[in-house]
């Protein structure tokens, strides 16, 4: 177990700055969710009408929020690995395996990004929307795409760094 021991990558490379900016944006969305939920509770407590369909807004916003957090998570080694069985391997071998793992992760994220794009198009074509607010679902799908795509790119970056380390 434990966070894979990827050292902070590069000195604030471009991808890191992007990922950090996305994580901040994710945090800001989470804060907005918090404020909206609290506002809805306060309205309800004071006997007013709570915010209509607030949980639907939470759902849509959460999808974008989590996707935006993934690139930073990947760069910080938050994508959990099991290192127990390879502790005895030479460091360079470990890093080579890390590169392979990150590459596979990039593949998975590329697949997920592609399919989510397809999901957005399908949701748009079929006019899918949330129950109460009628909020179009394709917006929720689309909000995830930048985060997912950047995660795939971040994984490629991690793979490259791990490979470079392995041949040192």
């Amino acid at each position, binding site marked *: *177990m*434990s966070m*894979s021991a990827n050292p902070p990558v590069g000195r604030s490379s471009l991808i890191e700055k992007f990922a*950090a900016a996305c*994580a*901040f944006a*994710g*945090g*800001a969305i*989470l*804060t907005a*969710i*918090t*404020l909206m*939920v609290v506002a*809805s*509770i306060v309205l309800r*407590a004071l006997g007013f009408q709570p915010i209509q369909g607030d*949980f639907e807004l*939470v*759902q849509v916003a*959460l*999808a974008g*929020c*989590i*996707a*935006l*957090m*993934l690139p*930073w*998570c*990947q760069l*910080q080694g*938050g*994508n*959990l*690995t*099991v*290192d*127990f*069985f*390879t502790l005895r391997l030479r460091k360079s071998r*470990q890093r080579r*395996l*890390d590169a*392979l*793992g990150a590459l*596979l*992760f990039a593949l*998975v994220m590329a*697949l*997920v990004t592609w*399919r*989510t794009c*397809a*999901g957005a198009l399908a949701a748009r074509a079929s006019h899918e929307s949330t129950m109460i607010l009628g909020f179009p*679902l394709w917006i*929720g*799908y689309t909000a*995830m795409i930048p985060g997912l795509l950047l995660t795939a790119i971040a994984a490629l970056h991690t793979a490259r760094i791990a490979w470079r380390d392995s041949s040192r």
Partner: protein
Amino acid sequence: MSHFGLGLSLFGAMFALMVMRVPISVAMFLPGAIGYWLLAGDAALLNHVKGAAYARFSNYDLSVIPLFILMGQFATQGGLSRSLFKFASSLLGHLRGGVAMAAIVACALFGAVSGSSVATAATLAQVALPEMRRLKYSGRLSTATLAVGGTLGILIPPSVPLVVYAILTETNIAKLFMAALLPGLIAAVGYCIVIAITVTLRPDLGPAQPRVSNAQRLRALVEIWPITAIFALVFGGIYGGFFTPTEGAAVGAAGTFVAALLRRELSLAGIGRSFLGTAVTSGMIFLVFLGADMLNGALALSQMPKELADWVTHIGWSPLAIVAIVIAMYIVMGFFMDELATLILTIPVIFPAIMGLDLWGLEYTEKAIWFGILMLMVVEIGLVHPPVGLNIFVINSLAKDVPMMETFKGVVPFLVSDFLRVILLFLFPVVSLYLVRLIF
């Protein structure tokens, strides 16, 4: 190949990938995707993946997780742990080993606003470790205390692993939190007893400090009121039926943010660090979910969990013996896997099998709660035992002068209390269920 055989080989492939340092999320996703393709065809697979990320990331119940994580981050960055430790050591510091006990109590109190074990250990360590070392507490006792104390972050509600369990098993989160409270307090008391026994045997490990005046204690108590208030508001609201757990978590995050601002310790940079920290932990959990969803989708097609459940129900062994074997299996998994990944990976397969058993004559919901608390206690142990206890690594990185081996040795007596507690909960379900029966 039979479907059951295919299900098993998916597990085999997953473990093989994990051993090769492939991220856990990918090690679950890839075999899952291949299994799904073999069982249902490529069109079905592509269709499944189309909605997979959105379905998981937009899950309302799961929003509790980033919100509770954010709350814990605000508490950490806002320095709330300092006043907790000050209060606890004003009460207990004059006892032999009292400052270590105070660290345990402070961890338990911090656990009331934090749902993460590592975060609790690291936060309290920054405050309590220098203090214990200054007061000539042994390195072994200091680091071990904080490593195990950190687990109170998840044993005392809110608790991220419990939320994960609740979502995977569709068990009521509020009931699970309530059920965790008493065992969590027992854990804290158990750790304090271990410290008391340790310093009775070796008084030099934790020398007593001068007694603090009652006026000073009162002042320290006043300083911790925000945390008490937040805890009361969040859980009072949830148990009063006034809001959902997600709403409770949002209130908690907002309240902790305000409390941290009032202490004037939460800077803009601190808020930024809170966001980044939340991103790492939340991202980690949702990635594991994404992988597990794919694997579980394939496993469900293979009917393996159902067949396994049937097999376990008809195997004819004593149901309690089966649970004991499952517990042992979790302890072994704790040797090499993260506790959340363990839960997300295994619960969908194990849970239906356990629910088919007659355990202490409990009805379904109570059985689910009892088993959930038991799981929480067991996976928590993995955080502090060799070879990869994450808490130990975190604490040791903060205490450079204490060798890792010393910390591992120091943890052993605490592990004894952990095992005794697991046995207690296993034999007496009433310990976890008492409050649930009383309140609901």
